[in-house]
């Protein structure tokens, strides 16, 4: 009986620790996602500034580029090219965010900003479009510098909280 209890306690502590590690990794992944999004925005900026490329074509190029956001932008490109679609870009963007995991890796605030960016994309003249892209990219850079500065503490905290929670549950069970 005692052995089973010991095994149970060990399992609880290991699982709680693992959950902490997963949350830590998620924090690291958020940085990677934002970095990839920043690169996509740079592509938007250069394509609009120098070639006046349409949103559909830019999304298709990002999709072909193998970024973390490839599937999402591939979906946007396909939907925009669909001649039977009676939806607008905002609706397509929102649907894409629900469909693809990549945007789920963002915080709630970042998700809102990303959705706002998508809704307004392509609706104005070149200067305003570039201004909006730059503004959003600055926001992402700000988020990235904040996250990168605190990433080690966040990962450590997640792991520690996981282990501590495991220990706490074990004590409660004993």
């Amino acid at each position, binding site marked *: 009986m005692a052995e089973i209890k010991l095994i149970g306690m060990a399992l609880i502590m290991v699982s709680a620790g693992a959950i902490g590690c997963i949350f830590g990794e998620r924090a690291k992944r958020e940085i990677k996602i934002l970095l990839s999004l920043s690169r996509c925005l740079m592509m938007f900026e250069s394509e*609009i500034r120098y070639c*006046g*490329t*349409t*949103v*559909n074509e830019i999304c298709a190029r990002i999709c072909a580029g193998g970024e973390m956001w490839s599937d999402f932008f591939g979906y946007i490109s396909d939907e*925009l090219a669909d*001649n039977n679609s*009676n939806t*607008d*870009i905002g609706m397509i963007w929102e649907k894409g965010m629900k469909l693809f995991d990549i945007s789920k890796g963002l915080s709630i605030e970042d998700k809102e900003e990303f959705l706002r960016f998508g809704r307004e*994309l*392509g*609706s*104005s*003249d*070149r200067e*305003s*479009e570039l201004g909006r892209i730059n503004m959003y990219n600055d926001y992402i850079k700000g988020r990235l510098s904040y996250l990168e500065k605190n990433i080690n503490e966040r990962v450590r905290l997640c792991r520690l909280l996981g282990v501590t929670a495991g220990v706490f549950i074990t004590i409660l069970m004993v």
Partner: protein
Amino acid sequence: MDKLDEICRILRDMPGDLIRGLDINFTLLQEVRLRPFRPLIIKYNGKEYFVSVRKKLTEDINDAYIVTGNDIRNTFLALSEFSTYAFEEEMRQGYITIAGGHRVGIAGKAVIENAKIKNMKYISFINIRVAGERHGCADRVLPYLFDGNNMFHTLIISPPGAGKTTLLRDIVRQVSNGCALVCGKNVGVVDERSEIAACYHGIPQNDVGIRTDVIDGCPKAEGMMMLVRSMSPDVIAVDEIGTAKDMEAVSYAMTCGCSVIATLHGNEIKNIRNNKNIISVFGRYVILKFNEYGKRQILIYDQRGVQMGGGD
């Protein structure tokens, strides 16, 4: 993609559904007009009709579908491929060319800066003009344009709407492909307003021949210089020349050994003869005009202004 798909691709919501549902021969469709809170109108086989909500053509305005502001907004978004910024220049000019070479005229409120049109906002009027090519319309003109295998520098003159761009396009196609009169030549087209080749995403939507290179949306003078330097064309085709800069580029192309075919707005050879720059450089003048009965006439003149051929 057929004509119906090309048009319905940009017509969203109800207008798209109604046009798609019409039981008509779409090769005879000429225009689709959208105006806010006005009936949906199409020009079909030379006649104007309203489109009813029952997907039928009608002449009764009470039966017509009334276009909403949302229909126009969504159609414009689809037309601009959800990328308004990418069509700024076209919007300034008042039209956008879509897949298939169809031209969509737009009108709204012009945004003016320094007495020039900077942009267009509140787009409220859309006119989809269905493209139609006339293969063979240059057959009567071509025999006068060649000296052996060499082509004369040719100027096509006509008032607006008489068909000079259509004629130019067919000459380009036949010279490029080769015909009974001449073997195929490399042709360079400077298509500033996308009227000759009607390029969409860089691909000509009109048949301009197998040996034709197109510079699309480029100012004529710069485009001609670029073509001469980069594509070594035998013939350069350009639409609506007029400025001194255009004539300078035409002269440059001619001195480089290219034959030039150009068009110009005008009515009579005598009006053109007043312009010494023009009369001295071209070897053939093709005048298109309508006679007093409204019938199209083609008149061909040589360098001295002597009529060589033509008629109704």
